[in-house]
């Protein structure tokens, strides 16, 4: 698979001297679904901001499709990387749901029928197609969050980064986000998601990156990262494998990070 983004020896120190990243080396591939987990303050948000140039590495370098991002404007990098922030209220300004969703795509130069199609597809993905004319602030927080997500989807970037998309969502909202992540992966786009929800990560992502104190301490498929042998490393940053994985180990079924893997293993026994 093609390398979409590559981080080489990336370190980052904030202007106040706080180190947030140290020696991060990663290669993110086309169509890959990557979940990033770790405690608050472990460097997850700082890491994803290196991808679209909102923060620039103070050591090492970041390349997108082989091109060094140094010196490239954020507005230009936004053609490749769409980043949905945690708090939707830091971006919503438009008078209608439709124009809010169109904002990013418009900035990338889409117009007319192409823009309408992208906006409509994004609205349908998050289930807000019936609210196109609604004022965003008349939606509750959980739906404003889906609106912010739609505005990134409409940009149709090859890389989509989601910072804690499931907070404040009920089970239906989480399922919807799982479907969106799945279909993005199917169309060959790379999805990177920060989350605290281990079940969501184990079920929806092919690759899990665990961060602690600015470093990547584990990187692999859920079946490896959530295996019993790594329980200590996870615990060192106050995380634990999802229940299905722990139960599988307990029942001697090997590592079964997702519910379906556990049930398959049980059925096969």
């Amino acid at each position, binding site marked *: 698979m093609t390398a979409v983004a590559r981080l080489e020896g990336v370190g980052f120190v904030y202007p106040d001297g706080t180190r947030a990243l140290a020696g991060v080396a990663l290669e993110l591939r086309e169509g890959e679904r990557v979940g990033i987990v770790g405690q608050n303050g472990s460097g997850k948000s700082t890491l994803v901001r290196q991808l679209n140039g909102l923060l620039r590495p103070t050591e090492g370098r970041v390349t997108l499709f082989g091109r060094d991002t140094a010196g490239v404007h954020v507005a230009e990098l936004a053609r490749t990387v769409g980043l949905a922030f945690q708090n939707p209220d830091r971006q919503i300004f438009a008078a209608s749901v439709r124009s809010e969703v169109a904002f990013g795509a418009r900035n990338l130069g889409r117009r007319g029928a192409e823009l309408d199609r992208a906006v409509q597809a994004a609205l349908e993905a998050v289930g807000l197609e019936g609210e196109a004319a609604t004022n965003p602030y008349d939606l509750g927080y959980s739906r404003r969050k889906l609106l912010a997500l739609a505005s990134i989807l409409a940009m149709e970037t090859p890389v989509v980064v989601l910072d804690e998309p499931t*907070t404040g969502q009920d089970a239906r909202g989480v399922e919807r986000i799982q479907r969106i992540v799945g279909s993005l992966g199917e169309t060959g786009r790379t999805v990177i998601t920060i989350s605290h929800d281990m079940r969501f990560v184990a079920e929806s992502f092919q690759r899990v990156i665990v961060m602690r104190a600015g470093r990547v301490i584990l990187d692999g498929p859920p079946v490896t990262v959530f295996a019993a042998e790594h329980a200590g490393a996870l615990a060192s940053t106050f995380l634990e494998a999802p229940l299905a994985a722990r139960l599988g180990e307990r029942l001697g079924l090997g590592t079964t990070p997702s519910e379906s893997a556990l049930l398959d293993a049980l059925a096969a026994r």
Partner: protein
Amino acid sequence: MSEAIVVNAVNDAPPTPALLLDGVRYGYAGTRRWVLDGVNLEVAAGRVLGIVGPNEAGKSTLCLVAAGLAPAAIGGRLEGDVLLGGLSTRDANPHQMAQRAGILFQNPVTQLSATAPTVYEEVAFGPRNLGLAVDEIADRVEHALGALRIEALGPRDPMRLSGGQAQLVALASVVALRPPVLVLDEPTSQLDPAGTRLVGEALAGLAAATATAIVVVEHKTWLLADLADACALVADGRVVVHGATADVLADDRLVELGVEPPPAVRLRRAAAVRGVALDSAVVDAVAAARLAADPDTVEPVP
């Protein structure tokens, strides 16, 4: 904690619940819709009631009504009775309510007064408003910070905290008022798993040590499974199911209404659907196994 905290508005007959909602309907000012439409709930001193429900079911409104802020502070139409320690919220001033019920909003940033140069003084804001003695304030602030293990944040600027830290500080600032009833709207939404567990332990400790009645709205049902004595499933402004936590969280209507059940319930349900045998006792034992990590093992970045 000192004796003074146990002072509870409930000092007459034992059956008086700390919080009682009786046939409550509520609609915001300027609207015609009933956001709460016939809610009956009660919480006894020292008990924890978990509230679950789909998005936009009326949970946040329920918090405002239970804490006496709606209608006292924001108007609106209230039918039925909301009693805090036997006193109807209709008859009291907002500041009287503040001593009977503390509330934590979803967004911790709006909760901070923005007048204090340090977290310590931010937490002292409420007690100072009550005109308490300096020693008493110091005692309350230190207990509140200690209960949430954020003593180290004491000297920090409250305007320069992360979302998770702000959430813990906002919670401490409510706890410092030592209200007999505590209403919390998604107190862990910005916290990582470790922070969430910490809040759960602090709340359980608070309920046990100070007989505080706690109402907590949570999406993380696994937290309620450990913490809550009872749960209520709310949808469309009504209480759909109300009962012991284990029963409510295992109720089919939870899933039907779009609420994520705790992992153990989910797995058992999925196994039943697939027709695979799964020993419930083992599931519960594994789910209940505590994370055994030493808080001091996290190494700093070299």
